[in-house]
């Protein structure tokens, strides 16, 4: 096409424009004052917004707490109260009386710790293989891994139940060890965490791998002496998230344990003891007290490890 106008350097249009920042005509003094005011106002707005959202987030917890201290009539009454009219510490006393708290707690901690350790080991191996080693069908296999995340867990329960039963881990003759195995082993694989850790491993510079090769280190040594320490924050957050997950898990442990002394805390605390079987009604006060009791340790765990979780989870989004 014919070029009608040639805006080359020699005969360019002289841009007769003056570029300014918007407030260009204001005096520096004025700008400074406005600056300061804006900073203060924006800070106030930020804090107000955060405070509002924090309130929204925290309110259900507050409600949970006060409900755990109310008696059932007050909970069910049509007028809501923001503070229990009679503080029912007895709800907590009841929960403690009814349950063999320490047995449940012990089971939960054992199951949580061993499933966490198992998960960490399998996750480290798998992530290492996917991130560092080359083999045929690596990407395809990883895609299959990801696909398993897309099937609803409810659907897997039946098959897994049959599998675990065929191992003899459940049933009338199941021992404590069997019960633990049934609760722990099926959850030793987590695609989600493998994915998370793989991303993390991938960020570790390849030079380190080559350097360790030059130093004559085996893959095994490299994994444990270089990769794992470098990915420690992620591993810690995986451990904690896994721990929390086990702590709150309910359906599967409830299904595979048939003796109350093998049960986990969330099964014990969310049981029928808070429903009135005659009328099928829930004793909300007890239930909430129990929920508070389950939640508090997790919450403390988070506060305790907040720094590590923050650091570890943040790497999730980086591409692999």
């Amino acid at each position, binding site marked *: 096409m014919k070029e009608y106008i040639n805006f080359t350097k020699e005969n360019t249009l002289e841009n007769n424009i003056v570029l300014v*920042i918007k407030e260009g005509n204001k005096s520096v003094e004025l700008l400074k004052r406005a600056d300061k005011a804006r900073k203060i106002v924006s800070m106030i707005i*930020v*804090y107000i*917004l*955060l405070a509002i*959202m*924090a309130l929204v*987030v*925290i*309110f*259900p*917890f507050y*409600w*949970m707490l006060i409900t755990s201290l109310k008696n059932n009539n007050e909970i069910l009454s049509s*007028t*809501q109260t923001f503070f229990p009219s009679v503080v029912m510490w007895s709800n907590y006393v009841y929960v403690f009386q009814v349950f063999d708290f320490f047995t449940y707690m012990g089971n939960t901690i054992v199951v949580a710790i061993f499933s966490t350790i198992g998960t960490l*080991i399998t*996750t480290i*191996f*798998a992530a290492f*293989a996917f991130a*560092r080693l*080359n*083999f045929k069908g690596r990407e395809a296999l990883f895609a299959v891994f*990801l*696909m*398993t995340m*897309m*099937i*609803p*867990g*409810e*659907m*897997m329960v*039946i*098959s897994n139940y049959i*599998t675990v039963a065929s191992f003899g881990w459940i049933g009338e003759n199941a021992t404590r060890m069997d019960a633990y195995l049934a609760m722990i*082993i099926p959850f*030793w694989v987590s*695609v989600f965490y493998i994915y998370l850790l793989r991303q993390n491993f*991938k960020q570790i510079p*390849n030079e380190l791998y080559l350097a360790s090769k030059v130093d004559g280190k085996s*893959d095994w040594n490299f994994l444990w002496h270089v990769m794992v320490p470098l990915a420690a924050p992620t591993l810690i957050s995986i451990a904690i998230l896994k721990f929390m997950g086990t702590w*709150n898990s309910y359906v599967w442990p409830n299904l595979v344990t048939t003796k109350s002394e093998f049960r986990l805390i*969330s099964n014990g605390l*969310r049981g029928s003891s808070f429903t009135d079987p005659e009328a099928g009604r829930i004793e909300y006060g007890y*239930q909430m007290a129990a929920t508070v009791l389950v*939640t508090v340790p*997790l*919450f403390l765990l988070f506060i305790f490890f*907040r720094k590590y*979780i*923050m650091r570890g*989870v*943040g790497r*999730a*989004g*980086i*591409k*692999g």
Partner: protein
Amino acid sequence: MLNIFKKRTTSKKYASELTFESARYGELKVGHNDKANVDVEVVSRHKVDPEYRVGGVLDQEQRNNWKAWLYLAPVLILMAVFLIYPLIDTIIIAFMRNYNYVKGTFDGFTFDNFGAILGLTTINGATETRVVQYALPNTFILVFITVPVSIAIALIISVLLNSIKFLQKIFQVVFFLPYVTNTIAIGMVFSVIFDSNGLINYIFNLGDFKWIYGASRAVAMIPLCLYIVWSALPFKILILLSGLQGIDKQYYDAAKIDSTPKWKVLTKITIPALSPQILYLMVTSFIGAFKEYASIVGLFGQAGTTQGSYELYTIVYYIYDNLNTNTSFAAAAAVLLFCIILVFTFFQLRVSKKRVYY
């Protein structure tokens, strides 16, 4: 990943640059246009991801082969037993007629299960309308409302949180709180708050407006979405906040120097910089949202706002409901959902290729 694309540029390019281009992308077509400029058309079958071209490791390929499988062995065994086998099992059951999982009996193989759950064929003389009428639309509504909204809110909160120093840690802890509780208990709290004589109606002076029990489907979606968003926030805030803390401060300094207004810093710098985290959240939370049902149980205690109604059905709720009695239908629904998620995730990843900057 296969990525066919064509790139056409017109510029006064010289040989050296052309070779550079070709090294990067592959086949080149060079032509001339009437302005004596060079038309360069780059045709490529696949874009080489630099990550896969890292030198050195490739040499190890053959040697690592058996080792890799050794490392994968524990996971593969466990996965085969606890994830892949159920997956295949589910797919097979989806094609069995009247599968009874206790007895292990079924009446031959069929495609009818899919037709039946979609209401194309009848069951016991009745048509299953709940999947098409409620479960599918509800699932999509929840997915397309809760995921973007929760990501947006999480983004706002984490940006705000990142901009403060005083009380930051306390706020962080507060916003993480929903992560440590269980769905059912907090669902109950929400249903009390949204009760017709609950807090929301009291605050907004709505009389005895029905949000939960007896509410219409559209209204019931509001507390449901709010609840799902609420419980989805902490993890997202966690990810985004630590993503934010990883962004080079220099970009913000540069933006300041360039007199960039705050909203523009957010949209043009922060969000693109967070795009890997956002993609990650999108993919995982879309998958999660497709599988939503526990929150409905938590909030409503049933699949509808009144007894016997299924207005709030989701696909997984349907699966859960039919698992014991109509296992074949449940499996068919699971396979259907699996396909939906698969297709959706695939498209999401494709679209994101252009929008995500690493």
